[in-house]
């Protein structure tokens, strides 16, 4: 790039004019070139993303208003699929089960994760080991740990009931866990907390490390005890982390499927049937693709509404 000296360009107007024109063209050209370079960076990912994610999402929304079994021609259904939701007892059960799962597991996981993060944020011996160990269930293969979970929580022979029996609980009062309609959801929720707690603990640890230690010193000078420091320094300082964790946890709980499939298969009865399980059944068992897309649309709207509400509250704070 050559820089024209202002004094020189004034004196040599005639000579520079055509030159300038050339530079304008090359500038525009460079802009186009730059854009092309930028697009070449984006293209590999974006093409795959557009074809395999964006496209199907739009198609999913359209399909919710259609009838289709995947082989015969598609027919327009209008709001048929929507009205059907209200008569579908399984959908209503799945809806409430998903809500219950979310309402219980989100705060429980959050509190466990925060508690552990605070414990492990202190300078204790073997801290790295504990962090790694507590994080490991999150990365462990679900199929493998779910089968262990089923064995440990086996009502007749499992370790948990054996221990409960040993500490004096009568055999008829022992929980039936996955086999009992009142305990099945508890079993699934406990599994979910155990599996994902470590991940959110790591996020909280990152949040805790971002808190300025001077804030604690100042609170200490004001005579605050540990609990007061926690309430007046840690909690407000962690608000953005808590927000992120809540949003992530809520989305994850609405998407819950794998662990239900492996621990209870949605049963007994419909006691652990959740929305995604119902979508799966309607799509890949009944091949009622329009209706399953309608349930998916409801799921999406639920997640979207909750996320927007949480964003609003975050902004107000």
């Amino acid at each position, binding site marked *: 790039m050559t820089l024209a000296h202002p004094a020189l360009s004034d004196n040599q107007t005639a000579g520079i004019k055509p030159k300038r024109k050339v530079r304008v063209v090359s500038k525009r050209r460079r802009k186009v070139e730059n854009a092309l370079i*930028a697009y070449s*960076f*984006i293209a*590999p*990912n*974006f*093409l*795959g*993303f557009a074809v*395999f*994610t964006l496209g*199907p*999402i739009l*198609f*999913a929304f359209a*399909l919710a208003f259609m009838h289709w079994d995947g082989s015969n021609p598609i027919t327009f259904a209008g709001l048929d699929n929507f009205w059907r939701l209200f008569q579908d007892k399984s959908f209503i059960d799945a809806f409430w089960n998903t809500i219950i799962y979310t309402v219980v597991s989100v705060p429980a996981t959050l509190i466990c994760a925060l508690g*552990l993060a605070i414990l492990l944020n*202190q300078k204790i*011996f073997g801290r790295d080991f*504990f962090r*790694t*160990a*507590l*994080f*490991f269930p999150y990365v*462990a*293969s679900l*199929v*493998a*740990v779910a*089968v*262990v*979970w089923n*064995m440990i929580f086996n009502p007749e*022979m499992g*370790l948990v009931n*054996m221990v409960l029996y040993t500490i004096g609980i009568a055999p008829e009062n022992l929980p039936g866990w996955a086999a009992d309609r009142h305990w099945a959801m508890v079993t699934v929720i406990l599994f979910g907390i*155990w599996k994902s*707690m470590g991940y959110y603990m*790591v*996020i909280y*640890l*990152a*949040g805790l490390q*971002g808190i300025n230690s001077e804030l604690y010193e100042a609170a200490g000078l004001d005579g605050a005890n540990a609990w007061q420091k926690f309430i007046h320094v840690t909690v407000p300082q962690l608000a*953005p982390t808590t927000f*992120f964790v809540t949003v992530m946890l809520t*989305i994850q709980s609405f*998407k819950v*499927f*794998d662990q239900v*499939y*492996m621990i209870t298969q949605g049963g007994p009865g419909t006691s652990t049937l959740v929305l995604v399980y119902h*979508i*799966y059944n309607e*799509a890949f068992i009944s091949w009622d693709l329009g209706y399953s897309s309608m349930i*998916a649309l409801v*799921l*999406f709207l639920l*997640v979207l509404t909750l996320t927007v509400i949480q964003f609003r509250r975050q902004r107000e704070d």
Partner: protein
Amino acid sequence: MRIAGRKISGGTIAVYLTVIVVTIIMLLPFAWMLSASLKLDRDVFAFPIEWIPSHPRWQNYVDIWTKIPLALFIYNTSKLTIIVTVLQLLTSSFAAYAFAKLHFPYKNTLFLGYIATIAMPWQVYMVPQFLLMREFGLNNTHLALICLQAFTAFGVFLMRQFYMSIPNELCEAARIDGMNEYQIWAKIMLPLSKPALSTLTIFTFVTTWNDFLGPMIYLTKTELKTIQIGLRMFISQYSAEYGLIMAASVVALIPVLIVFLSLQRFFVEGVASSGLKG
């Protein structure tokens, strides 16, 4: 109380006790799994538990390879996981560089397209995606799973957040030195983004290796199955052979454990620096 000349407060002891008890509870299923994998089926549920079997049955680890095509499942899963992870790392960091450091028309619109889908559960569009793949003739192929897992909004978002924290002056200086954008990406950005790349590697590797619903929908032929659905198939076929099931489960866990342990020190750093904390 004094230990080794240092004053230890009651609080510290409580912290240690809590942490140790919680860790034991969290790791208990793994210990149980390992212990059961070395037992005869009839001893698996014996109570009180013999945590370290007096006669470890190593034969379980020999039998699993012949009862199911476990080696094939592991090969399939490794192949899928490695391809998806490499594609994900390359394309995400490539696209993220443009979003973070270059100027071009429709940049914000395109980025919004990515952001909008991050909160979208995969289950919402898994059915149309399946129909699309069937249309392409990709049903019962590994390519289908590669296509649906390699180009995620999450990867682009995570890398972009990290690149935003790298000063622009660094790129400017490189441009003045005559590097083109591709060189800047390869020689400056990539080496600097190790924490973010490690985080993304862990996430992608773990998600792909452990994916269940995807392979379950797409792969119905036994020779294509991944370790997760293969393991599941094994469990339903031999539901009473607890020792074997546990041995196969241990084998399925090992690769994830290795990747996780070798990259985990980057993890906290990666989560923190990619702006995930809000």
